[in-house]
């Protein structure tokens, strides 16, 4: 009870409903008179769509409706949430992103026709009857090939396939620093394309009540309010109050369920035309081809150092592959989220980032855990190891020399880091990783003909785009509404997601309640006030702060009621955990008594009855978790097989409300990062644009026996200085830090200068042969 619930490793209260199978995901929802939808998708990467012959499908048994691109020409396209200004002062190019393909097909898996039928089997059978008349065009899948290619995706808007050319930083100052450098390290890096692969495939059920002209959309989505806003304001023109978006339990998102997608948009339109519910559940093959992909950067990076190994300047040129269209958040990933993190935890005084973002005949990319920051960390941490190798300096020591030592620290890329202690964090992880035992472990490996190596990765993360982020068409903020019931229990309504236990702990602690007396409502535009939901990681640092502010207001109002009951002024009261006590040591009243009085107007004459408050919180700047991760690998030089032997991480998440859940976030993020470094790669055939990694046999997610025991700790002693909870969050930190840690370790083991991800046996073996040659 009370304050003791904060900081306690409480198991999650929501677990039993998942563990007993009672939790309802979108695919579990069945509505009366429900129909079923199937999408006909583009079989080729690039083609002119000459005609759609859907007559046979329309006449097939059980079919109710067939929609094509022509049915959506009057609607808006799927919008970009960001509008960047290019280096030439012009706005980025925003080609129309159709709901269903109109004149052209631009990637394999693009939705072309929607077939709605009485049963799923009937919809599938009818979809097979749809004929697409196509004129195939050459496909461009790699950003470097696409830029300026003869084959153009969006002829009118982006004749060279360029979406934007954007820069950040002072190019002249960086140039001057390079001119006086004692040493320059250069590295070419590839941050490969990933497919996020939330385990729950996307699903939606749209329904419409023609009598009330009201629609409801159940959809597996991270941000129901944003989904509704974009659907209503940008695409279908429905009045916002007429559409309710409900996100049931979410089976993983990682950013891939944050964009507004064509599928649910088409489904909603279909249900409005039919007046019946329409349901669609993606198959895994559809998820691979049509979920937003991620990463996909080509980068040239160079670091200038002085004679003492101090960083003078960093220059980065990146070519980012956006895929065929701009997904909702895609524009901010290789620009704002990326460039602003290129300082890492280092003092580098001059940084210049030059990004060109390119359209190609591939699935659109969008944010995936650590979006932009993961790519930045990989650039910086690989470059530092490379510089250390060239200069003969210990890579740990080179980092120590360049760490930021005083906070707050203003980076040259615009990010203000309020707090942190990178040096202490590094020392903590070196202890955790038992480095003193490393030489002995290395000797054991060597005796078996194996190579052992260690790799370090240090990072700073910026969790959550602050309200004023350049180019954002929506601002990040979160709201919370607290409803106190007459018996004292509290219902919390917030769009912030995924923290039922944490939020209940927070409320219970301040009001002196049991966590069971606090109920959370989330994920429903019909029941919770506007907020951005589970985007960008900062549920606690933003959503938690909104709840904290609402609690401030609630306690203020409760104090006025208490003063009335205790016959004094509010200033004459002391408050602690749900209990007001007169300062003169007199009478006191508890939360249940207050709640009851609040609902009996006669008990508090002159005061407004009820005890409900709401508050909003918009962060003035992102919170900045930081940390150090150390990976230890064993590599078989004969086969290129990499085994992760140990993984140690120390993360500074600021104030932590529940260490059990914080450790879970650390583990999860690390697994995503190690998956990228070791196994995962989305591949398209370079000649015809077919997706080659379209099943779990071809796209390797980390399995239980691919990953090691994960040693994680929290850094101590720092908190976020600009939010009331001191929380920095950290749900994405592992995905940011782990890739460089693993690749640095493999390079250390084999004495390699460069190695591209994923470090598959084939690639490691090949790198070894090239290095020898």
């Amino acid at each position: 009870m009370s304050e003791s619930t904060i900081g306690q490793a409480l198991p999650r209260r929501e677990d039993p409903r998942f563990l007993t199978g009672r939790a309802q995901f979108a695919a579990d929802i069945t509505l009366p008179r429900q129909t079923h939808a199937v999408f006909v998708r583009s079989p080729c990467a690039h083609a002119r769509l000459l005609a759609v012959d859907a007559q046979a499908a329309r006449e097939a048994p059980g079919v109710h409706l067939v929609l094509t691109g022509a049915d959506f020409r009057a609607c808006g396209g799927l919008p970009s949430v960001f509008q960047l200004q290019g280096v030439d002062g012009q706005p980025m190019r925003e080609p129309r992103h159709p709901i269903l393909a109109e004149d052209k097909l631009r990637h394999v898996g693009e939705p072309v026709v929607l077939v709605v039928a009485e049963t799923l089997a009937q919809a599938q059978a009818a979809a097979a009857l749809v004929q697409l008349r196509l004129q195939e065009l050459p496909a461009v899948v790699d950003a470097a090939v696409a830029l300026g290619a003869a084959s153009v995706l969006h002829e009118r808007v982006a004749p060279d396939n360029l979406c934007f050319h954007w820069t950040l930083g002072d190019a002249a100052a960086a140039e001057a620093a390079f001119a006086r450098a004692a040493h320059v390290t250069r590295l070419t890096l590839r941050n490969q394309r990933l497919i996020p692969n939330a385990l729950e495939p996307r699903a939606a059920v749209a329904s419409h009540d023609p009598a009330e002209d009201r629609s409801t959309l159940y959809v597996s989505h991270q941000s129901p309010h944003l989904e509704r806003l974009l659907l209503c304001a940008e695409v279908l023109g429905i009045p916002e109050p007429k559409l309710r978006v409900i996100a049931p339990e979410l089976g993983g998102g990682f950013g891939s369920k944050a964009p507004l997608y064509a599928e649910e948009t088409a489904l909603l339109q279909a249900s409005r035309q039919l007046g019946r519910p329409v349901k669609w559940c993606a198959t895994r093959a559809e998820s691979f081809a049509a979920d937003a992909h991620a990463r996909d950067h080509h980068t040239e990076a160079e670091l200038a150092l002085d004679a003492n190994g101090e960083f003078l300047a960093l220059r980065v040129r990146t070519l980012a592959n956006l895929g065929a269209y701009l997904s909702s958040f895609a524009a901010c990933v290789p620009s704002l989220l990326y460039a602003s993190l290129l300082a890492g935890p280092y003092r580098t005084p001059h940084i210049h980032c030059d990004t060109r973002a390119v359209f190609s005949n591939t699935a659109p990319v969008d944010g995936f855990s650590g979006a932009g920051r993961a790519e930045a960390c990989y650039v910086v941490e690989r470059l530092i190891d490379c510089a250390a190798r060239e200069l003969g300096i210990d890579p740990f020591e080179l980092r120590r020399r360049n760490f930021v030592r005083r906070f707050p620290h203003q980076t040259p890329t615009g990010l203000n880091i309020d707090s942190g202690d990178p040096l202490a964090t590094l020392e903590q992880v070196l202890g955790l990783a038992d480095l003193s035992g490393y030489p002995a472990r290395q000797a054991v490996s060597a005796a078996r003909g194996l190579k052992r190596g260690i790799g370090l990765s240090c990072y700073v993360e910026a969790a959550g785009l602050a309200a004023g982020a350049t180019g954002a068409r929506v601002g990040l903020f979160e709201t919370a509404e607290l409803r106190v019931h007459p018996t004292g229990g509290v219902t919390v309504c917030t769009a912030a997601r995924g923290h039922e236990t944490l939020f209940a702990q927070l409320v219970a602690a301040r009001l002196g309640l049991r966590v069971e007396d606090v109920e959370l409502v989330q994920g429903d535009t019909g029941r919770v006030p506007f907020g951005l939901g589970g985007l960008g990681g900062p549920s606690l640092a933003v959503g938690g702060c909104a709840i904290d502010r609402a609690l401030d207001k609630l306690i203020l109002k409760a104090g006025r009621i208490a003063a009335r009951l205790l016959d004094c002024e509010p200033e004459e009261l002391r408050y602690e955990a749900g209990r007001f006590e007169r300062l003169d040591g007199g009478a006191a009243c508890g939360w249940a008594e207050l709640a009851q009085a609040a609902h009996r107007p006669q008990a508090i004459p002159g005061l407004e009855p009820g005890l409900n408050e709401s508050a909003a919180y918009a962060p003035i700047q992102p919170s900045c978790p930081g940390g150090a991760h150390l990976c230890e690998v064993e590599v078989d030089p004969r086969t290129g097989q990499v085994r992760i032997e140990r993984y140690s991480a120390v993360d500074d998440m600021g104030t932590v409300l529940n260490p059990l859940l914080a450790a879970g976030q650390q583990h999860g993020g690390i697994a995503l990062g190690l998956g990228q470094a070791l196994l995962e790669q989305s591949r398209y055939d370079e000649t015809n644009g077919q997706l080659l990694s379209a099943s779990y046999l071809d796209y390797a997610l980390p399995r239980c026996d691919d990953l090691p025991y994960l040693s994680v700790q929290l850094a101590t002693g720092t908190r976020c200085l600009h939010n009331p909870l001191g929380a920095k969050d950290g749900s994405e930190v592992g995905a940011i830090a782990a890739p460089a840690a693993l690749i640095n370790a493999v390079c250390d083991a084999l004495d390699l200068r460069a190695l591209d991800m994923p470090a598959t046996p084939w690639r490691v073996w090949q790198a070894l042969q090239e290095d020898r040659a």
Partner: protein
Amino acid sequence: MKQALSLTVNGELVECEIDARRSLVELLREDLGLTGTRVGCDSAQCGACTVHLNGHAVKACNLLALQAEGAEVRTIEGLSPPDGSLHVMQQAFQDCHALQCGFCSAGMVMAALDLVQNTRCESEADIRNGLDGNLCRCTGYHNIVRAVQQAAALLPPRR
């Protein structure tokens, strides 16, 4: 083409006429309303649909319902008593924070139970090898392994 099918699901006799093409997971989810068994892929690669068929873990997306003729099927809904208390394996998952989004959990619990009851499962490596047919994208498996270790210490092997 419809065919007659008779099997036991969570201790109750089920007799029905079904399309011969129907998979076991479709029967469970669509016809019997047991949606606790999830579908994460449709090719037996993710393990979210793991249920027990005559006491052994199977992937229900990859079996025809007719293949379960006469069998005893147990799903996640049949694991814990109706009073809301949890089975030892479920409790271990909660205690160890072995789930985040919860989508893989039903299949993971069913697979883990088969593993500890029906196989030699003594070391961490045994557990990691034994669970490699079940994908989890949230936990890095760390706490899942801990949960299975905790439950294994409490559950007698059946073999």
